[in-house]
């Protein structure tokens, strides 16, 4: 092949490689924007639930209580009102739980630390928040860190279901341009592995932010370790 043709082919390859790299950067950015938009949509859905259906149902619950207070004592009418009030209270509780799972209001109002502290308090398995950044991050970064911890806590809690006596340890370490997130289920004697179910969603969430995720396993526990770039 003549030298000129070789040089031309090399230039073409170089140009295409550069174009592909640029495209990859844009695809990664687009993926991060989509993930962030999905979290924003969760936040909006929580707000709509709170301001809409929850408020209306609350009003109904309080009116039922007032109606019950108008009745002189026990009787069929009072029983029916009490039954309706109990059903409504249960529905409100479920709605509140659903809204909370969608998006924690503390994340917006107070930031990552308080939101994670509340998550740990509500955890169904013993958990401790060992380290968390003190500074406020961008909304997208706080959302990413929170939901990675939340999903990882759910996964490791699944591991603890089969190993009583364990405890989940959460560390979110601020490394300047990145956050190192570690969620580890420590169990005397160790547990076999992090359940695969649900790991795919967590991997996608981390990858969408340009981060990396790996599962860890040692003699005293299993866990998830994520590195998330932060702005």
């Amino acid at each position, binding site marked *: 092949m003549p030298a000129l043709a070789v040089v031309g082919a090399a230039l073409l390859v170089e140009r295409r490689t550069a174009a592909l790299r640029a495209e990859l950067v844009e695809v990664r950015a687009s993926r991060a924007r989509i993930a962030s938009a999905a979290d924003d949509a969760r936040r909006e859905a929580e707000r709509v639930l709170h301001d809409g259906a929850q408020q209306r149902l609350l009003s109904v619950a309080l009116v039922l209580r007032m109606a019950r207070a108008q009745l002189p004592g026990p009787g069929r009418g009072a029983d029916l009102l009490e039954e309706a009030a109990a059903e409504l209270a249960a529905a409100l509780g479920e709605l*509140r739980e659903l809204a909370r799972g969608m998006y924690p209001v503390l994340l917006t109002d107070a930031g990552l630390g308080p939101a994670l502290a509340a998550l740990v308090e*509500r955890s169904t398995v013993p958990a401790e928040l060992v380290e968390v950044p003190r500074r406020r991050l961008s909304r997208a970064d706080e959302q990413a860190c929170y939901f990675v911890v939340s999903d990882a806590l759910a996964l490791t809690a699944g591991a603890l279901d089969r190993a009583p006596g364990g405890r989940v340890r959460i560390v979110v370490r601020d490394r300047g341009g990145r956050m190192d997130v570690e969620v580890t289920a420590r169990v005397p004697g160790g547990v076999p592995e992090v359940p695969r179910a649900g790991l795919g969603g967590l991997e996608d969430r981390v990858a969408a932010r340009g981060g990396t995720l790996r599962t860890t396993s040692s003699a005293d526990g299993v866990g998830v370790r994520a590195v998330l770039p932060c702005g």
Partner: protein
Amino acid sequence: MRARVLIVDDHPSFRSIARRLLVDGGFAVVGEAADGAGAISAARELHPDVVLLDVQLPDLDGFAVAAVLAAQPAPPAVVLVSSRSRADYGTRVGDSPAVGFIAKAELSGDAVGRLLRCAG
């Protein structure tokens, strides 16, 4: 003498129901406001004994309003209310100058009275 209450909530239906519940519970409702700025202005004008204050308001949040009210001379007792639970706000309720928190579904004159008595 009946304690004088200012009700602050951006939902008119809740304000109306809260007014009835509190009046039935022996309180005198002296005013209503639909947002944080209105609450601060109404509190300065009406000098209520108690402010029943929704946490989620369209402008300031209830914690910020409670802090402003607490800085007033002869501040009112602030009772925070929300359709969310206290746990949803972490330590923010305890850190605020409010005398306490009532989930909206549990609101009654008795519940407000109990908090005021505990606050002494």
